[in-house]
């Protein structure tokens, strides 16, 4: 059985390494399983639009850490070229703890920059569900104690070894109306889409696809279908 006890030595080791410049020297022995790794992943880096709408969107995750403890940086958002404004942009800083073969528990904070500057606490989980469904879910607790939630599910279908079709669903929900943010209780945003990418390298894959987006707020409601083109890259 795995123990989930907090190990201060390990954490200090992790933080020490993080501060010490992040790059690991060659180990003296060939059995060093405490190495620090990091991964920058631009899952989506794309143009999204239709006749009325032209958006530039990003969804980036960066982690650094060892097998058990990781520090996560997540940022998502969009920029409207027509209006020269950011529609939504936030940054999350999370501590991620491996709790099971396929699952990480995450806790941290989210800072939203646009449209409102807000600050939320985050409790989430991330991992791979049976049948290879990639899951990223989080609960956000606002400074007024309101609850928001986000869940995204993704799946990869291999058409060939390098041509991959990826359906994806993201749902954002709110427990109650939040006046100052214009948030309406219920499903605030629903996004379902499909991206077809070609892995020129594992690390570099351009893609095309579409998204169906439904947004619901105290001020407005709209839904639209958008064409996307972008690239996924990581290192």
């Amino acid at each position: 059985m795995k123990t989930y006890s907090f190990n201060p030595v390990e954490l200090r080791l992790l933080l020490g390494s993080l501060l010490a410049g992040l790059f690991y020297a060659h180990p003296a022995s060939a059995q060093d399983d405490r190495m620090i790794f990091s991964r920058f992943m631009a899952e989506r880096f794309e143009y999204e639009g239709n006749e009325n709408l032209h958006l530039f969107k990003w969804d980036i995750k960066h982690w650094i850490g060892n097998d058990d403890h990781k520090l996560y940086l997540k940022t998502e958002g969009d920029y409207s070229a027509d209006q020269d404004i950011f529609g939504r942009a936030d940054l999350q800083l999370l501590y991620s703890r491996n709790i099971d073969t396929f699952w990480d528990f995450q806790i941290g904070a989210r800072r939203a920059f646009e449209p409102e500057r807000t600050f939320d606490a985050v409790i989430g989980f991330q991992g791979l569900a049976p049948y290879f469904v990639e899951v990223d879910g989080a609960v956000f607790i606002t400074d007024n104690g309101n609850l928001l939630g986000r869940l995204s599910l993704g799946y990869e279908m291999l058409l060939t070894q390098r041509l991959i079709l990826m359906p994806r669903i993201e749902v954002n929900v709110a427990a109650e109306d939040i006046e100052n943010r214009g948030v309406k209780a219920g499903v605030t945003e629903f996004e379902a889409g499909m991206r077809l990418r070609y892995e020129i390298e594992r690390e570099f894959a351009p893609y095309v696809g579409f998204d169906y987006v439904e947004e619901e707020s105290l001020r407005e409601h709209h839904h639209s279908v958008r064409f996307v083109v972008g690239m996924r890259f990581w290192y």
Partner: protein
Amino acid sequence: MNLSYRRFFILALWLPLLCFGSARAGTYTLTIDEKAVNLTGKPQTAIVANGSLPAPTLHWREGEEVTLNVVNRLKEPTSIHWHGIVLPYRMDGVPGISFAGIEPGKIFTYRFRVKQNGTYWYHGHSGMQEQQGLFGALVIEPAHPHRPTERDYVLLLSDWPEADPERTLARLKKQSDYYNFQKRTVANLFTDLRERGVSETINDRLAWGQMRMEPTDLADVTGATYHFLVNGHTPAMDWAALFSPGDRVRLRIVNASAMTHFDVRIPGLKMRVIEADGQPVMPVDVEELRIAVAETYDVLVEPEADRAYRIFAEAMDRSGFASATLTPKIGLQAELPKMRPHTLLTLADMGPMHVGHGAHAEHQAAVPNDNGLDQPPHADHADHTGHQRHPRPASVPHAEAPAMGSYKALDYRHLMAAAPNRGWRQPDREIRLRLTGNMYRYIWSFDDVKYSDSEPIRVKFGEHIRFTYVNETMMNHPIHLHGLWQYLDNGNGAFNPKKHVINVPPGQTVSVIVIADAEGEWAFHCHLLYHMDTGMFRKLIVEKAEHVRE
């Protein structure tokens, strides 16, 4: 026996050896350095001994007192481990276990008496140096040589990566299926639906999906980055060995790969396996043999025709191959066989994983014992099992001995020691070791505990321990124990073969008996480099004889 008496006794035994044996004492110097090489079309840096890739083959003699000066010209620490050699543990060469390693600019002198003969190898045990070229063959002449063969060659198989091995490991940590370009696609789904039917296909996909695993996951690092080499040569460079028709050719096959199991065959020739891991076995004729990482097999071939033969070693996952030529005349080419399609892992291979965690149901044993012994696959000789139960008692000089059986492919069940093991008895206790891993995050472990979190395994000097390896993963794990032999329990009793590496296939259980006859602290690990490096490693301590009495 009183300790001082025992010391005296041992000294008395050693005296004649000192008089005669010390006549042979070889001093060897290995200088470890970086070297620019070009095997992939791009310049790369290799770590080499005496400027050679692979490292030079060392020829020792049984009974010889060897002195090996290892000079470190690198900017990082280094070490050399003498794989499969029985020696004092301070000479074993594992940094952090048996010594401190060799710092840059320093020299370490290994000194020990060679108590065995056969084919072995040596390699770096620091960082990823083994993957970067630091490996070579050891050929040890017997004290009383038997009739030599007309030709005697070393075939050192290896896998050479396109990227820096640290980067390879980092990629596996970020995306563990990075190198698998043989995954099942939508097209395979339709083929399966057509060929296997809807319900079977769906059930199969659901079962694999439930486990979140891929049946094509035969190798973590593949031909997507590896170039497979024979004696440092790519198939295009075509390393060649000469023979005259009618010669008996001894091939000492060493798998010095970091990660690759090979299926070796020489189309047109039968291979007579005469030694496994340096130890004589009852000769077995095979058309093909699978050699796990770090194993060695000595085979005899007798090419009659005046033509070239291809020595063909396919990577187990069929992502590439190593190849060389056996030829009567330099320049003569042999046809290059086609690679065969790779096999998929089956749900049965997944053993307990598929059954479900927690319920470690007893599954099919890899090595059936005497009463449950079924016919080895592809057996041509029906009387083989009979031979196994009544082994020929005496050791036969293997070059002359007739084969004990003839098979399509070598199987561990075919291996039988050429001479009975002295001191064979039932083990004193059993240690079960589960081979575990988290493929998704690329963490490997024993009993779900990786090395940095583990306690050493302690055994007492003189103890006979049965180690039972239960492979709960979907990968083959070649388990290597330093300094002590593993007697594979394949139902041959005193004739069980002894090995330094035991490959445990996916989902299977294999037992070995270890006689703790060497004091010290030994490394005990999976020999897949990236498995060892990510936690599939233990320290095994054989406690001093004095402690036994306390």
